[in-house]
């Protein structure tokens, strides 16, 4: 297994990029030889973070989204960063079913899904500056 690798992806906050973003991180993660379920977990978590940037960070504009993924040993770290409105109360935002959006597809379960599917989720946000979500997951070592 290759020991270290890192990539950076910059996207626009267009909804058609949601599936693209999760595919890219999923494809990069395959270098760690994860199980299909681990790949699905990572793709789902990335989908949530990227959708949040598209829906919440840039409600009325098209902005930049930056994704950095790092492979090290059997660990993948994914950072999803936006430069949008930011989150005022992070504790509240993390609550299951809490959502500020009136869009029906926002269930308020985004952060809960990220926390369930990844080992660690760190949120760093400054109002009017933007939000960074850092996620980490260990991949099981598979034998051949």
């Amino acid at each position: 297994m290759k020991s270290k690798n890192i990539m950076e992806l910059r996207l626009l906050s267009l909804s058609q990029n949601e599936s693209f973003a999760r595919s890219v991180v999923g494809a990069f993660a395959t270098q760690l030889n994860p199980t299909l379920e681990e790949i699905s977990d990572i793709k789902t978590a990335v989908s949530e973070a990227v959708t949040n940037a598209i829906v919440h960070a840039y409600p009325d504009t098209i902005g930049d989204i930056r994704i950095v993924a790092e492979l090290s040993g059997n660990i993948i770290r994914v950072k999803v960063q936006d430069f949008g409105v930011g989150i005022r109360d992070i504790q509240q935002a993390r609550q299951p079913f809490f959502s500020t959006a009136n869009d029906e597809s926002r269930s308020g379960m985004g952060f809960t899904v990220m926390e369930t599917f990844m080992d660690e989720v760190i949120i760093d946000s400054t109002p009017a500056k933007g939000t960074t979500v850092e996620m980490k997951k260990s991949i099981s070592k598979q034998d051949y």
Partner: protein
Amino acid sequence: MQIHVKHQSDIITAYLFGELDHHSAEEVKTKLDDAIRKYSDANLVLDLKNLSFMDSSGLGVLLGRYKKIKMYGKNMYIKNANKQVEKVFDVSGIYKIIKKIK
């Protein structure tokens, strides 16, 4: 995102194909609402066998359809979710509200 609707006696089965995320949510919502309005005397079964991916955007869409159907005095059921979709359902506890059938 494709949806095929099959109507049989008092049940409509909607087969979802593809990926249900925030991008495809609006289309899924519109198509399911059309079916619910057209067959308002039927129960709705969502067959997710061919839904390859769903994130939390799907939860909101499904709960919204459930509420609408309940207003017509009918019920909604979920069927054949794959492992990834099932995991998102489990996190949300949606099966306490919408029943899973075989």
